[in-house]
């Protein structure tokens, strides 16, 4: 959490001034019992003095007004600092996420990252606001009240001191005892959550095996364990406020007991007003301590959120590359013994091939064979962990992001359309000419179904949810065609189309890309068959490389795939 404070930039002054204002307000609060004591002694002592009483009342209201002014200023500054901190963190976190390796993003999941940006940042922001608002106020009141009561009644100084120490000790003890219990209850809730998730994933299987009863039993056990552990935690944490009250009220009893005599033998300076002031200070101490304990809970939640946010910040951004000049004579794509691993075995390895302008490479393999990782290596989403990837004669690592973008176009299997219109999606690569857009849509056979809607002006919902998988793929293919880059990667980009349509679309798309290097990845032998070279992947390894006819002879897996279409 402390590390996140570097994002306080622009709000530092507010974050420092806010607690200072709060201290002034706390001081005013501390003065009130003294004023009342004075009023009781001077205004009500002897014959009484009505002027003192009224003046005390007026001063109390004035002080309240001043306190309100300071306190509202503090709240405003604190809110500004906290919200500013939150927004700065959010912006930095978003930029950071967009610079993480896509593999890391996949592993964390979009949902988790969105939670970090929303819930966790809000939590941290809230915690920070509470922190600067109360962190000084509560202790200042607690300690101030102890000091004031010692000043008021020096000869029984030990009562408030001991009582406060005891109450503080109780608070710490209760917190220490309840934290591990809450952690356990959390864990039990995780179990409940896990079983729920498992059940939703397995709806069909559970019903197919008619295993509803045993699932229910498993869940009910987990829910009961969570219930028990929560109850155990509350057994301890519910002690806090009653125990604090008991300690403070007992100290009031002590004060009465010890002070009662002193008041009577009024030779001593201890007056009735002082006695009432003491009682008031004790209740201020109690309130402050309870505030501290709720503050600790909020702050610890904020710390947990902060830690989760920091864990994302700790993940390395992808290095940028300093820029390089493409060599127009070199092959567009060259892989030298390249491999990539997520940490364990190579996800894909042993990659050696060279592609020139106009050449088409087919890549075939099943799910998990490493095809998409290969595509990721060519877009630098994945940085080769072994060997080298060269684009236009230069190591891919040397290029800037913009340069890679102008060299490579990538059409993914799961095409993503952004909310907007078909036109805004097609224009992503910078194209703005309707004519050319319509032409690309025709090539990708997307013009047909779009003409039934509003053509280029057809609205696209979030994630393109108003289009079927096949329609999205075709729009995405058209978008890829509109981007002017010499390397085109089609990653299972027409897999949602039926064989016949796919073949037709692919033929037209490839016909438009004769001046490019195309890497056409697929699970279907028919899609890659006519490529100049075909790379056969299985379980992350290259098991065949060559033209169709050659592979039919030399690669048994390829022959089997073709035979088994």
């Amino acid at each position, binding site marked *: 959490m402390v590390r996140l404070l570097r994002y306080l930039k622009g709000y530092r002054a507010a974050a420092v001034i806010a607690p200072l204002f709060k201290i002034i307000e706390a001081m005013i609060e501390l003065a009130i019992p003294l004023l009342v004591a004075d*009023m*009781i002694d001077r205004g009500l002592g002897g014959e*009484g003095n009505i002027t003192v*009483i009224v003046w005390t*009342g007026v001063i109390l*209201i004035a*002080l309240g007004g001043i*306190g*309100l002014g300071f*306190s509202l200023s503090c709240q405003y500054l604190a809110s500004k600092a906290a*919200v500013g901190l939150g927004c700065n963190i*959010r912006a930095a976190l978003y*930029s950071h996420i*967009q610079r993480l390796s896509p593999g890391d993003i996949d592993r964390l999941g*979009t*949902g988790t990252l*969105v939670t970090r940006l*929303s819930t966790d940042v809000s939590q941290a922001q809230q915690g920070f606001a509470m922190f600067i608002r109360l962190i000084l106020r509560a202790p200042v009141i607690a300690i101030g009240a102890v000091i004031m009561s010692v000043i008021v009644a020096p000869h029984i100084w030990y009562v408030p001191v001991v009582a406060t120490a005891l109450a503080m000790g109780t608070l710490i003890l209760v917190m220490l005892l309840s934290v591990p219990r809450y952690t356990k209850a959390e864990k039990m809730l995780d179990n*409940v959550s*896990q079983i*729920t998730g*498992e059940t*939703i994933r397995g*709806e*069909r299987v559970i019903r197919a*095996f008619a295993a*509803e009863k045993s699932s229910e039993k498993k869940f*009910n056990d987990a829910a009961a364990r969570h*219930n028990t552990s929560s*109850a155990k935690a*509350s*057994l301890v944490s*519910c002690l806090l406020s*009653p125990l604090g*009250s008991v300690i403070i*009220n*007992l100290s*009031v009893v002590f004060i*009465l*007991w010890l002070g*009662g005599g002193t*008041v009577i033998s009024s030779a001593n300076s201890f007056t*009735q007003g002082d*006695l*009432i002031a003491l*009682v008031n200070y004790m209740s201020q101490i109690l309130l402050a301590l309870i505030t501290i304990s709720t503050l600790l809970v909020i702050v610890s939640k904020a710390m947990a959120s902060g830690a989760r946010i920091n864990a994302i910040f700790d993940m390395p951004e992808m290095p940028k590359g300093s820029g390089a000049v493409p060599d127009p004579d070199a092959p567009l794509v060259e892989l030298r013994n390249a491999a990539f691993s997520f940490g364990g075995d190579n996800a894909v390895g042993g990659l050696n091939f060279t592609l020139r302008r106009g050449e088409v490479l087919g890549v075939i393999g*099943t*799910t*998990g064979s490493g095809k998409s990782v290969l595509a990721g290596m060519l877009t630098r989403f994945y940085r080769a962990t072994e060997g080298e990837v060269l684009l236009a004669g230069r190591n891919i690592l040397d290029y800037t*992001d913009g340069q890679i973008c102008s060299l490579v176009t*990538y059409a993914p299997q799961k095409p993503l359309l952004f*909310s907007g219109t078909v036109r805004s999606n097609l224009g*992503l690569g910078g194209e703005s000419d309707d004519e050319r857009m319509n032409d690309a849509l025709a090539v990708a056979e997307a013009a047909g179904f779009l003409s039934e809607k509003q053509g280029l002006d057809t609205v696209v919902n*979030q*994630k393109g949810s108003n289009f079927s998988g096949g329609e999205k793929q075709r729009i995405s293919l058209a978008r890829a065609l509109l981007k002017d880059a010499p390397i085109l990667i089609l990653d299972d980009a027409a897999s949602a189309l*039926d064989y*016949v349509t796919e073949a037709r679309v692919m033929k037209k798309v490839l016909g438009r890309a004769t001046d490019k290097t195309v890497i056409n990845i697929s699970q279907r032998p*028919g899609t890659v068959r006519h490529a100049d070279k075909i790379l056969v992947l*299985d379980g992350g390894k290259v098991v065949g490389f060559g033209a169709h006819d050659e592979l039919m002879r030399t690669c048994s897996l390829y022959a089997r795939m073709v035979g088994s*279409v």
Partner: protein
Amino acid sequence: MKAGKKSVLLRAISRYSLRHKGRLICGLLCLVVGTALSMVIPMLVGNAVDYAVAGAKDLGAIPVYCAVIASATCLAGAFTWGGNVLLSTLCFTTVRDIRMDLYAKLLTLPLSEIEGYSRGDLMSRMTTMGENLSDGLYQLIMQLSSGAVTMIVTIVCMYILNWAVATVIVCLTPLSALVAHLIAKRNRVAFKKQGENIGRMSGMSEEYISGSRLLRSYGKVAESEAEFAKVNDDLFKSGLASQFAGATVNPLSRFVNNIIYAVVVIVGGVFVLGTYGGWAGAAGAALSIGGLSAFLSYANQFARPFNDLTNVAVELQTAAASGRRIFRIIGLEDEDKGGTAKVDLPVDYIEFDKVSFSYSPDKPFIRDLSFRADGGSKIALVGTTGSGKTTVINLIMRFYDPDGGNLIYDGEDIRKFSRADVRRSFGMVLQDTWLFGGTIRENIAYGKPDATEEEIRHAAEIAHLDSFVSTLADGYDTVISGDGEELSEGQKQLIAIARVFLVSPEMLILDEATASVDAITERSVQSAFAELMGNKTTFVVAHRLSTIKDSDLIVVMDGGKVVEKGTHDELVRLGGLYSEMLKAACGE
């Protein structure tokens, strides 16, 4: 309308809470006694202070008061603690019961209902929203009981002390309530705006993060950052407004309290003087210095329930929203259990007769679907993603019911049989293997928990799983995580096959079962399938045409319709879509 919604929710929750009447009543009693005792203490202290006045007659009263206050304090502490514990566990238990019913719903609702919600949504209803409900319920009970008792006891004590000053305080209280109400109202607007902006930010970041690859490959990251910054600016404005709105509650209510406090000082002081002068006593409103000190304590405490209510208002709203979303699921109609006719195995045939079906009424999907699967035959369903193959499986398994036409199961309408019986007659292996957190043994024995060790091993052997399991240090006791991350797709698939073997069902359904398996494991999986199928009636959904060549019937689907059906040879001879697909698949 709104009040109606609230009362429906409250009634639903109290139905659960009232199951634990004893705890509720004991808890409330403890809390009432504890709160009342602690509210009496300031009055007792005030009285004691009067005996500490110089010249007081009864010096012996101080020790008595000390003893009384000390025991009231201890009793109040004990009762409050007991009440807090009883009521908080009551809330936990209530939510546990609600969770159990919610979970049961996950297994009894029609799949069509469940699939209308995302997994994350349902999980957050179960966990986060359950916790919200539990917290909110606790706050509600506390505010209603402890808050009310605080007010009542304070009023009574104040009127015992002095009716005139008490009336002043009671009259000023609406001021406090008014301030609390105004703040709460303003906060709601600010919080709503903030909530909307958070929603916008989440939606945008979800789109941009899941599209991260695309943004990068089109060089649009900087543009997305600018878009994000715009929303973030709005979030700053609305965040500041809502954060500050929330932060004004305490200072403002403290200020109102200070005013009331000051008024009590003046009015109380005047009455104390009046007591000296005799006129206050004449009006039956004598006030001692100790009494004034008690009033000062009460002036602070009296307004607390209002302030607390303002403070927990947001929490209560969150809880109410969470509760409504939980009960929306619990209130859904269960899937009917189906008919009562007995399934008479073996099943002679299954027939689709002009079946139509759609997932949403405005989009017709399956139309005029007809084919017949004879007992012991192998039926293949072929077509692209979205052509309706998996839907056919959903209909056979009675996960969904047809909208029109007849689905005949063993000569009778399938609706005459219970859903559970129909489902049990099939063994099912899907593309996404479902494993749960537990040992491999438990996962294999899922459909038959009382299976003997021998049976389990036998099933594993036939499924070609044995050799793999024996390489694991803990063998069949190896614990796997819920998603089986430590296993390959193929290994997971083999466990699923062994699982089906163990129950040895009458018929089989294999839905794209080898789609994510690498070539080497695929061989084991294929031969395991061959063993499994034997001469059982089998429905195979496949995208690789070779695996289905020897099927007794191939049903070719496109856009929810059967385009052609027949054996491989017949379809090739027909020269229709199937043969075209075959050619296209080979690249010819």
